[in-house]
């Protein structure tokens, strides 16, 4: 087992699954040139039939992945930046999410659509989206949001082996993070299983994607003050490990949800509603959301970063829940 980055985990997951199963192939814009480093060496290993550069036609090639999947292939589509999913909404929502259902189970669509959450680095509003929650609102799409390199490898391999369509959202704030990457070619993390990233007793922090490392830092900081956070990473948003979330909240009686997406209708909102509906009796305070303000992301580094979840905002939310109001800013988190 060697250490490897989040990007390297993507590369290994794809490589191992392409070696294991010749039905797996990858296509997308500039795959051969390998812009982000997730397909290093692939053309030499697998040839240009299985490593395909596409025209800039997201609706066309994402739709083509559906057709190829229906006839027995297992495509991986690399859409690079998640905002580029929008031109393909027709194929993702009307074809990929619904074909199995509308044809009464006759279709099977084993495909993975990968894209990164490219925020926090002065790329302005059109390139900085975190759109997974939009897709949570559409039945028929599984969604993974790995927060570290090990999870990325295990979840992406599971996604490629899954017989349903899976959207993989890759958080660019995690790209350089490293973890021990298992060598076992059958190492997978089943979709729908969350993980307790840090055990704690006072507050459950359910964090998504790049929110997880921030929550872990907040937990470390608060531990020094005697406040114990339990950090839960659902890892998969669809299906969601509701049992793990509720079990943790029933133990701690307090909950904060952390999500880099815009707050309204976010994963944080959905998880908060779940807790309010199903663990209300266990709660000792409100469920608090630490998400991104409902404005666009500005280009200027002077004003972008403060809009996202941060260690300080999670700490402030925790103080509010454990009664340390004197340390809080007057309003909000």
């Amino acid at each position: 087992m060697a250490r490897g980055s989040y990007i390297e985990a993507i590369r290994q997951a794809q490589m191992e699954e392409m070696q294991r199963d010749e039905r797996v192939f990858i296509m997308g814009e500039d795959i051969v040139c390998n812009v982000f480093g997730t397909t290093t060496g692939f053309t030499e290993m697998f040839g240009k039939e299985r490593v395909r550069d596409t025209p800039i036609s997201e609706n066309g090639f994402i739709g083509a992945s559906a057709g190829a999947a229906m006839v027995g292939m297992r495509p991986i589509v690399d859409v690079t930046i998640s905002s580029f999913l929008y031109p393909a909404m027709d194929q993702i929502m009307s074809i990929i999410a619904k074909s199995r259902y509308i044809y009464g189970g006759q279709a099977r669509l084993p495909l993975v659509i990968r894209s990164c959450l490219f925020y926090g680095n002065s790329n302005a509003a059109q390139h900085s989206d975190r759109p997974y929650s939009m897709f949570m609102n559409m039945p028929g799409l599984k969604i993974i949001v790995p927060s570290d390199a090990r999870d990325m490898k295990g979840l992406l391999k599971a996604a490629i082996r899954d017989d349903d369509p899976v959207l993989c959202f890759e958080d660019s704030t995690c790209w350089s993070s490293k973890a021990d990457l298992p060598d076992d070619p059958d190492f997978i993390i089943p979709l729908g299983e969350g993980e307790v990233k840090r055990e704690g007793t006072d507050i459950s922090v359910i964090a998504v994607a790049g929110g997880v490392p921030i929550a872990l830092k907040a937990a470390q900081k608060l531990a020094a003050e005697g406040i114990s956070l339990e950090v839960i990473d659902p890892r998969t948003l669809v299906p969601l490990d509701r049992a793990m979330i509720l079990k943790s909240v029933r133990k701690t009686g307090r909950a904060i949800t952390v999500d880099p997406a815009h707050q309204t209708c976010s994963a944080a909102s959905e998880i908060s509603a779940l807790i309010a509906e199903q663990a209300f009796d266990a709660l000792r305070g409100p469920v608090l959301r630490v998400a991104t303000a409902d404005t666009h992301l500005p280009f200027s580094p002077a004003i972008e970063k403060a809009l996202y979840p941060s260690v300080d905002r999670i700490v402030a939310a925790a103080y509010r829940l454990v009664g340390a109001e004197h340390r809080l800013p007057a309003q909000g988190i």
Partner: protein
Amino acid sequence: MTHRPNDLGLEKYRRMMRIREFEAVAEAIHAAGEVPGSLHTYTGQEATGVGACIALRDDDYMVGNHRSHGHPIAKGAALGPLMAELLGKVTGVCKGKGGSMHLSDFSVGSLGETSIVGSGIPVAAGAALGAKLQGTDRVSLCFFGDGATNEGAFHEGLNLAAVWSLPAIFLCENNGYAVSTPVSQVVSIPDIADRAKSYGMPSAIVDGQDVDAVEAAVAEAVARARAGGGPTLIEAKTYRYAEHAVNMGRVLRDRGTEVDAWRERDPITLYKARLTANGTSLEAIETIEREAKADVEAALAFARASDYPDQLAAFDDVFVDRLPIPHYLVN
């Protein structure tokens, strides 16, 4: 034109008659309130569907659109599950989940009859890509209307198929109208087939009322695709006799004598005359007509006798595994 042997000629006639009879019954039971939702009939376009499908092998792929009844029948599907689908029954080809706009029978190579205009085109290109990657000589044929050729999906799908030299046949059933809008009002060139030039793709224009002409054009495109020669765009000029959908409730366009002119060149009448002229006995033709009627009646009886789906079936086939059932539906 070289004519196929008479038995295949009769098969074309049989499939066209099955579509005609199916649609007649579908309209009647829809008018009687037996079919929920909308109904988009294929009557008048029989020769395009049958001519195209008769040029395909059973294991070739096909993708269609919201005007979905004719395509599976043309490709050889059984009628009972199609009719049952119109009634929303569990024995329907889509188990009652799709309805009139989605009569897709995967057992005859269909990969969907999709009701978002143009959306099947990238899917068909992808099936062709799959066939190519698998090293088979299967081809993938996509039916779509004139309206679809103004969608981005049309341009993206055709370009992709062309640059990858995919074994795909794009068959535009130009019936003259996108719902109520005449094609001349929204396409700035007389022939949609000319759009193929933009992709360096061969094209053909055929008389969509002539089943043999459609078959010949598609057969040529299929042969080219199987041999690795890439995709073709075929424009079949045809016509639908009914409104866009039969329950739209008002006449959306003033057709004047237009329908009558097209009925003069009805694809079934034309083909019947050709068969007769080629020596097919009237008895053989009438036997096919009787059988088509009887088959559709049997399909309707099957559909009516079938059950509706169980409520919990609403949670099947979102994914391969059934979804959890919400508490308000658990007894």
